């Protein structure tokens, strides 16, 4: 019995030790779903900036690791399938490059895995970078600059806004893929029920017209159901109502990213207008100001008690799948008198590594994934309007056409690495305005000093 117990104890200890050894920080990269084709296969043309190698010179085989958000190894969801297809196409065109895909979720857990891999700087070459993190990674020397890998054709093809949001200290650090141009989604059945006419890109609403429509669309049905005219994800950290902040010509930062300017009159008046939707006009649900994206999307799509939702294009496939009575509207115009949109940029960054072959291969992959060719190779790859002029694959329906056209009205902030706590406090001030705890001027004045100090520090 004693002997058996001893053996059992040893086994337990050994299994724990082995388990601990297996838990290395960098997640194990899965094998590619399909092996790369033989080198004799005809390569498909890609947007490779480099000259094809001479017939006598075999390119050196290289393996790179691609961290893809939302990818699940063996998964059957559209994102995973499209990623597999895109990588497969890339490897067919570049037989000497093997791409390993590591899936990470769009959650804090995914952020942690990504940070761990970046800290170890091993087995990670290409990854989706979010705009707020880009300046930090760039400043910390994690990223490889893309400029040496851009051709003149590329430079002319990309929209300026794409480069603008990827530029830190005068250098471009990521390949721009798309912009989630924010627009207003309308439930056309509710519009018809209330006899409200839809605006268009050519004849957009003024602010007053928008408020009047939202008021008309806020009503109680005979069965007691309360319908609200407008909502948007507005929990702390949400950005989906941001276009409204720019309609009067205000911005968060000056165009050079050195001064906090949202406490200026044009910034404050837009914030007060936004708050008035809930506080004065009462056209928003009672959770406006604290509700998250899932919450507002459920109200709009499932409960159907909201007539207009300001959101990102990523919601359109869900609505289309359910044949939702949808129209996409431009945001209303403010004092500036022109359309304004905003949104998050999809960017692919390349990790700076010493192996030049690997670095070059990683840039090739990032370039392919943000190019026009991938949109042709993989149907459904483009979930938002692309940031290349040549990439027109997104605008396949009237709704998507509106979103694609809104890209040219985009207003974006220069990326500046400010401490996260400043971002937290800024987000809290926006909430304070929407919830009526402070006026736009009070809130922006309250955060201005702290924000400016952070900008001064970042721009030293």
């Amino acid at each position, binding site marked *: 019995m004693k002997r058996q117990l001893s053996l059992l104890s040893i086994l337990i200890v050994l299994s724990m030790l082995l388990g601990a050894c297996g838990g290395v920080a960098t997640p194990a990269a899965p094998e590619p779903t399909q092996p790369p084709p033989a080198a004799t296969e005809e390569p498909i043309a890609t947007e490779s900036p480099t000259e094809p190698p001479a017939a006598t010179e075999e390119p050196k085989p290289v393996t790179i690791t691609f961290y893809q958000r939302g990818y699940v190894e063996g998964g059957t969801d559209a994102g995973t399938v499209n990623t597999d297809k895109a990588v497969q196409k890339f490897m067919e065109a570049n037989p000497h490059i093997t791409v390993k895909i590591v899936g990470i979720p769009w959650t804090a857990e995914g952020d942690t895995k990504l940070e761990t891999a*970046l800290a170890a700087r091993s087995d990670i070459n290409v990854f989706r970078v979010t705009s707020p993190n880009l300046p930090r990674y760039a400043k*910390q020397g994690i990223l490889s600059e893309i400029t040496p890998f851009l051709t003149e054709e590329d430079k002319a093809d990309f929209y300026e806004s794409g480069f603008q949001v990827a530029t830190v200290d005068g250098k471009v650090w990521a390949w721009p893929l798309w912009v989630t141009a924010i627009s207003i989604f309308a439930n056309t059945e509710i519009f018809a029920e209330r006899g409200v006419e839809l605006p268009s890109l050519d004849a957009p609403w003024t602010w007053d017209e928008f408020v009047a429509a939202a008021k008309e669309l806020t009503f109680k049905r005979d069965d007691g159901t309360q319908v609200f005219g407008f909502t948007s994800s507005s929990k*702390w950290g949400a950005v989906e109502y941001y276009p409204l902040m720019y309609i009067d010509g205000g911005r968060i930062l000056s165009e050079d990213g050195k001064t906090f300017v949202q406490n200026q009159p044009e910034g404050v008046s837009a914030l007060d207008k936004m708050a008035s939707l809930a506080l004065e006009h009462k056209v928003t649900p009672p959770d406006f100001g604290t509700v998250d994206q899932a919450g507002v999307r459920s109200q709009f799509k499932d409960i159907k008690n909201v007539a207009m939702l300001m959101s990102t294009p990523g919601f359109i496939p869900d609505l289309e799948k359910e044949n939702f009575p949808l129209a996409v509207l431009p945001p209303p115009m403010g004092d500036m008198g022109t359309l304004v949109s905003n949104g998050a940029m999809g960017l692919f960054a390349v990790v700076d590594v010493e192996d030049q072959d690997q670095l070059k291969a990683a840039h090739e992959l990032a370039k392919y994934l943000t190019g026009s060719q991938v949109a042709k190779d993989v149907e459904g790859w483009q979930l938002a309007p692309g940031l290349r002029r040549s990439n027109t694959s997104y605008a396949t329906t009237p709704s998507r056409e509106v979103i694609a056209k809104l890209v040219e009205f985009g207003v974006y902030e220069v990326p500046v690495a400010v401490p*996260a706590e400043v971002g937290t406090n800024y987000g*809290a001030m926006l*909430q304070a305005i929407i*919830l009526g705890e402070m006026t736009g001027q009070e809130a922006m004045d309250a955060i201005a000093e702290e924000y400016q100090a952070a900008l001064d520090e970042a721009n030293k």
Partner: protein
Amino acid sequence: MVHPPATRPGLAQRFVQAWNKYKWSYFFIFPSMLLFFIFTAYPVGQAFLLAFQKVDLRGSEWIGLKNFQDIFASKLFWLSMQHTFIYAAFVVAAWLVTSLLVAVLIQPLHNRIQSLFRAAFYLPNVISIVVISLVWIWIFEPQFGFFNYLLSLIGQEPVRWLQNPRIALWSIVLSTVLIVPGSGVVIYSAAIGSIPRDYYEAAEVEGANGFQKLLHITLPLLNPTTLYLMVIYTIAGFQIFERVYIMTGGGPINRTTTIVQLIYQTAFSDFNFGRASAQGLILFAIIAIFSMIQFKFLGTDIEY
């Protein structure tokens, strides 16, 4: 006859003797000690070191007390401390009172009925706090929630329980104190059951009523139990996280941010591990100080 002085065995010899005597004991505690060192002692030691370092993707560098200076200069830190203290104070007091009250009320019942009540009150302890928090979100939902439905029955306007920055923290406190802590009920029941009946009989002979017996016999003799529960409830109160994270995420306007929520945010949202470790050390110090104070003022030895 003179006896030679007894020679004390040498260190090596004593080690061999101890090893021969206790080797199997060490062998059997080895797995748990190994786990303790890998998953507790080592991370705690690392956290202590990280608190004095700046950690980013390039590596780490020693910065002395800079993390602590930044923390004490942060308004959000003091706000989170304020929220944590308010939460802990109300929750600890409410939990102690409600668990004692329930334990006293079920004490005269038959053993089987007592067990039934203890099990019923303990049941929420085995349910995930995530599930409980999600249920509370629905109870507090401003349009269709249960609480606002009850208010509508008496003609009251709906309340934005988790959306109004002035009441969101109190809503979270309410959601916590409305669940009687089963562990407290079980522990108080056991403690009350172990108080000798003689004391109560003697008090009854002297003409004491039920309240007087509770005040002068039960409560004083429950002091060690109360101290124990107060300490563990205070620690739990200071460590409030899941409920806040799920129900409000620290908002609105940072009005429900607590210290552990801030630590989580600093570590896994801002990826500032040095500062998060320093915040963790501060929380550790606060809990330790509170526990010492509680032991000093309530730690009386009672024998019966």
